């Protein structure tokens, strides 16, 4: 007999026990673990989906902010450029004005300098010319400038026309000890020269002419006689004026020279 009924019963019991044990120690724990993992994965997927949605939203917000920022930046840049251009124009206008003022001031200063230089040249020239004239006269004719000046004054009243001489004479004759005729010279007149002038006056106008002698440097190497508004004079200033006129023609040339 191939079937042993006791063994069948025992195997039946064994199998039932095995079913229970396998359910207890294998299927249930494994299925629980699988279910837990699936739940965890589902949760993680949901989290991931949520995170992705949030990331998309944040990306959209970020892009929107970027766009707004770009627009604002462009607007600010445009505004700043416009303001900078305006400021530039204003500064340029100010600079132009300032340059113009400075240029005018410079031109004025240059003119003043030119005038001062001109005056200095005139003064120096007068001194040099006077010195040369003095030396030349001393060397060639053995006379002083003062002597020649007095001689030239005397010669001049001899050369003037009659009406002028008459007017001068009337004026001189009207002088007195209180209101003498004024004889001004750039240098101190030597007594001989003064005596010669006095003698010449007395001789010309037939009476003693009262003279008051003054030394005036502005007469510039000359001598002048004035009374009652009439004046007779000689000085080298006349020659110098002619020379100065010549210099005025081209100041740059003589300044560089």
């Amino acid at each position, binding site marked *: 007999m*191939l079937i042993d009924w006791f*063994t069948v019963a*025992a195997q*039946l019991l064994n199998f039932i026990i*095995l079913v229970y044990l396998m359910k207890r*120690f294998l299927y249930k724990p*494994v*299925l629980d673990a699988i279910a837990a*993992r699936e739940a965890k994965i589902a949760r993680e997927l949901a989290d991931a989906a949520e995170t992705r949605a949030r990331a998309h939203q944040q990306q959209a917000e970020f892009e929107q902010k970027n766009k707004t920022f770009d627009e604002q930046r462009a607007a600010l840049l445009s505004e700043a450029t416009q303001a900078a251009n305006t400021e530039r124009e204003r500064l340029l206008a100010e600079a132009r004005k300032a340059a113009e003022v400075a240029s005018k001031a410079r031109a004025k200063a240059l003119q003043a300098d030119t005038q001062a230089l001109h005056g200095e040249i005139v003064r120096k020239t007068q001194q040099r010319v006077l010195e040369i004239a003095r030396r030349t006269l001393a060397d060639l004719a053995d006379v002083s400038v003062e002597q020649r000046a007095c001689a030239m004054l005397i010669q001049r009243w001899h050369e003037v026309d009659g009406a002028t001489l008459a007017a001068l004479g009337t004026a001189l004759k009207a002088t007195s000890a209180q209101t003498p005729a004024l004889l001004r010279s750039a240098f101190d007149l030597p007594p001989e020269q003064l005596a010669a002038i006095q003698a010449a006056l007395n001789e010309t106008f037939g009476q003693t002419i009262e003279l008051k002698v003054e030394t005036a440097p502005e007469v510039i190497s000359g001598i002048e006689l004035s009374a009652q508004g009439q004046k007779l004079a000689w000085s080298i200033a006349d020659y110098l004026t002619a020379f100065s006129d010549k210099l005025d023609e081209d100041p740059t040339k003589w300044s560089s020279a």
Partner: protein
Amino acid sequence: MRLTPDNWIFWEYGFIKLNATIVFTWALMAVLVVGSMLITRRLTTGHERSRWQNLLEIVVTAIIGQIEDVGLQNPHRYLSFLGTLFLFVAAASLATVTPGYEPPTASLSTTAALALCVLVAVPLFGISSQGLAAYLKSYMQPTPIMLPFNLISEVTRTLALAVRLFGNMMSGAMIIAILLSITPFVFPIVMEVLGLLTGMVQAYIFTILAAVYIAAATRSSKAAKAPLSAPEG
């Protein structure tokens, strides 16, 4: 030569016999249960898991998949019974690589016990699924004339289950034993490999047939007709 491990008796007292079938069954049970306990003691629910846990999960989910493929709606409900059937028969077959071992399934007593389990389980699942009346009514489908044939079918298929598994497992063991006496080298190894394959196939067949019987019993008559009237696709 022993035709069945039932005849290999270790201890006997009256009708109580401690034979190789029962002892090797206990050994298999111990291996299966202790192995499961050791592995499931440290199960993880995270993404990282041990290779043993992976193995168990693969086995369990594969069995569930097969049960679903047969057409059972709630596979977890039948997993304990069908899964244990498969694992026991498969383990009994795989253990034949151990020298001195004889598979308990090579005993008609064991296969008869398993077939009796199926014989009892099928109506139990059927009744719990569709109720006693509906289940009993299913024996008279499509006509009451079919009642005796359905009953005969119930018994014969149980017998067939028991004898099929016994015949295959016993024949495997017998063939190896005969070959060992004729050609002791190489051939028994080839037949052993073939026996392993046959054992796995038998485990699969036994389980699938049990699943099919349970599926037939749990499917209500309305549901059974539904696929016929339902449009395809």
